[in-house]
């Protein structure tokens, strides 16, 4: 209930402001503070202690009650101070495949004092805790589960703390409008990349055959099952994958039209799988989508460019 109330207040206050430019400093007016549920329980205990002190005329009981009450109010300030003046900047976010968890990095700097147990939380999700040393920049990865390809927004993040005694909840919000690219999840049922594209330039590179077998390496998630060294496994070795030596004798065009799948999303998943396969075996490849094409190439950057094109296919330009 309390959390909902906080959210509605935040929605109302920050309606016009987000997303905002970095860096954000948590100045006084950005930080809210209310007693936590534990704080209300503590207040109840204080009341019990007070009544007992009055009833039994216990002077030390009064001292105890007032010491704890004063400690509570000082704690409010400490909780607030644990957030105040923190400087936040957006960090990078690695692209992920749909269904994976994207980690949105937030750089947090504490100009004064060490901060403990500063939590970052997206709505209805588990918090990430960070300790921030004085004058140091901590990188806090905020996990966001991706569901579909395209651009993934981090959205508004609540930064909060209850340190040192958990009786108060101090919080603020930030939203840098960070986005991550979510690639389509590769679909291994696409099979190997097509040997012969209908493309004019493709002279056809045979996909590596048995005779191209080069060596064994450890199995990695995503390796096609047909490349698994089953015999080696049967001998009792670990799960190994047969690595094939790429001939790299030509260029392969991965074409939208070759991905024969029911709907566009499935096609993109096929293409993504092929991109990864080609990259893995060292095949030079190009990507042709309706309305765009990426000339053949190889390497991390090329792979990322192709996957990004697949991720953003049909999406509007970056906001």
């Amino acid at each position, binding site marked *: 209930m309390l959390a909902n109330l906080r959210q509605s207040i935040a929605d109302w206050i920050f309606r016009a402001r987000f997303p905002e430019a970095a860096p954000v400093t948590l100045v006084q007016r950005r930080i809210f503070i209310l007693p936590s549920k534990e704080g209300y329980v503590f207040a109840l205990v204080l009341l019990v202690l007070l009544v007992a002190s009055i009833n039994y005329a216990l002077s030390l009981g009064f001292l*105890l009650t*007032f010491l704890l009450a004063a400690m509570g109010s000082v704690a409010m300030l400490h909780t607030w101070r644990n957030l105040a003046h923190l400087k936040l900047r957006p960090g990078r976010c690695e692209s992920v495949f749909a269904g994976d968890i994207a980690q949105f990095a937030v750089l947090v700097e504490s100009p004064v*004092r060490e901060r403990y147990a500063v939590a970052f939380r997206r709505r209805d999700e588990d918090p990430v805790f960070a300790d921030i040393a004085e004058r140091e920049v901590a990188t806090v990865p905020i996990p966001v589960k991706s569901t579909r390809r395209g651009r993934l927004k981090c959205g508004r993040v609540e930064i909060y703390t209850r340190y040192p005694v958990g009786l108060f909840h101090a919080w603020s919000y930030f939203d840098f409008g960070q986005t991550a690219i979510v690639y389509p999840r590769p679909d291994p049922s696409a099979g190997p990349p097509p040997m012969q594209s209908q493309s004019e330039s493709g002279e056809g590179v045979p996909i590596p055959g048995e005779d191209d077998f080069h060596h064994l390496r450890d199995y990695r998630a995503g390796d096609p099952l047909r490349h698994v060294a089953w015999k080696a496994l049967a001998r009792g070795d670990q799960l190994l994958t047969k690595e094939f030596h790429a001939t790299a004798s030509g260029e392969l065009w991965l074409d939208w039209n070759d991905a024969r799948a029911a709907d566009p999303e499935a096609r993109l998943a096929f293409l993504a799988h092929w991109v990864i396969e080609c990259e893995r075996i060292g095949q030079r490849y190009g990507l042709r989508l309706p309305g765009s094409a990426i000339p053949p190439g190889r390497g991390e950057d090329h792979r990322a460019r192709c996957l990004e094109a697949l991720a953003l296919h049909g999406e509007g330009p970056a906001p």
Partner: protein
Amino acid sequence: MSRAMPNAALDAKGVMWLLGAMLFVVAPHLLRMPEWVAGFFLVMVAWRGWVAWRAQRFPTRWIVLALTLGAAAGTFLQYGRLFGRDAGTTLLVLMAALKLVEMKTSREVLLAIHLGFVLVMTNFLYSQTIPMGVYMLACVWLFVATLVGYQRSPGRAPGVAGRLVPAGKLLAQALPLMLVLFILFPRVAGPLWALPQDARAGLSGLSDTMTPGNISKLIQSEATAFRVEFEGEIPPYQRLYFRGPVLWAFDGRSWRMSEFSPAAALEYPKAERPVKYAVTVEPHGKHWLFALDVPGTLPPGVSARHDLQLRSVRPVDARLRYEMTSYLDYRFGEKLPAGFREFALRFNTWQNPRTIALGRQWAAENPDPRRVIGRALQHFNSQFTYTLEPPLLESEHPYDEFLFDKKRGFCEHYAGSFALLMRAAGIPSRVVTGYQGGEINPLNRELIVRQADAHAWVEVWIEREGWVRIDPTSAVSPDRIDNGINAALGPIGVIPSIIAADRFGILSNLRFAWDALNSQWNQWVLGYNTDRQRQFLARLGIDAVDWMNLAIWLAAISFAVAGIVSLALVIRDLPKREAPAVRAWRRFGEKLAKAGLARAPHEGPLDYLARVRAARPDLGEQAEAITQRYVRARYGEGISPPEAQELARLVRDFRPA
């Protein structure tokens, strides 16, 4: 989920801290509770420690339930009830132990810590001394430290300092506000509901009955009965008779207070040597108060009975301070109504026949009361011994046994038998119990009256003189009255024995200092009640009688103090003031930026200077002077304040545009 493995959130170190804090806070209870309670508690704590340390399974819900019922049943069997001070505290201690055993979530940890605070409070039901206060403060510190440990990022439990230092800071910063609340929070007189019967158990002091043997037991106690601050001179030692219960009714063995006792007007035919003083009496659970001889003015809420015994409206359940005046030279009770006279002469004739016969014989030989009193005192003086360990008087005629066989006794023996002798001789008499003497603390000129100073004496009524105090003990042992109980009998108890052995008086001075401290503690901390609050606040110009007024003061001062503490903390966080040289250099850059020569973020001062020189040769000299000083201040040996001022002036006069 009763068989769940320990929660990862409940890290073992944190649990150990909590167990340690609990042991600390419960230790004083365990010492005074039955052994099985201590055993139960320690076993539970050890069990929980084992579960946390070795990541063992928690006990099942059924085991916990069985233990809970067992603990409640045990408490009931021990005390015959579940409430009241002793039973309630025992139950709380047992339940805390069970809470520890089944505690799995951080929410339950918090609950256990709250329980710890309540247990601190229960300790105050038994003792509110300075050492107990300090000890409990340490306990609170431990609990807050435990709490702080649990608020850290999961999996990053802090070390000892990481818990104790923040907790200590919190408590230290809370002290000013605590003090304000303590002073200004309105005190209500009296309990909100009836106290359990045993809330004040274990109070020592005089009773409303005097039987041979009961005062001599009392005087082995070193406990303080009350403290007296005199305004002006302290009266001579042998005049320090503090009257307490006045005993009229005699049943052959015991002297009792009479139920019927109308109030009296405090009018004396003679009242001289007034003494003003304030008494701070320790709680004794009874209505009577103690005062020197005859009271002049009475504190509010106190009345005087016709035999000048002072009675408080409420039983003295808490330490009570009252101010009053007494007269040391006085005459009172010259007219004795027939009813009272008859009462003051009453005794049964079938007990103590030899004592009665002796009294009658003296009266027959010379009926002058003064003569009879003199003979009685002489009788005691010649043959009797004053002793703290009188032989038991077991016969049906205790005073006969004392006067004619044993002849060894304590003040109650002398007072009791003397009063009976007087009655037999036809002289109205009554026994007065109270305290005589005391110890003057040279540090604060305060008289400390201990239970060891308990005393009993007699008042006899003489025609035209009224009630006159006769202390038969002084006939036997004048030292008792002149120099106190330790002088008369040698040191009684452990502490006086040690002090007597200390030739240089160091221990005795330490004891006085400690007592002076305790006295302040009693008056200002423990005795800070409605009246004291009003007096104290009136001195500060705050009217505490009006609740609304007090509430406004409370709110205002609390906010002010909280504000000061907050400000002190927040100011430390504000961005540091720029050093003068840095500020001057920044202004220099701003001025040049306006002239189209902004410094690039990566550009060092000397590179910048070179660029400025190239672009604006006219400014070169000034820019160089400024840059050189800045470089020296920042990266070199530093510059003196006059040089910094010179730099500031150079920048002020620098006009590139």
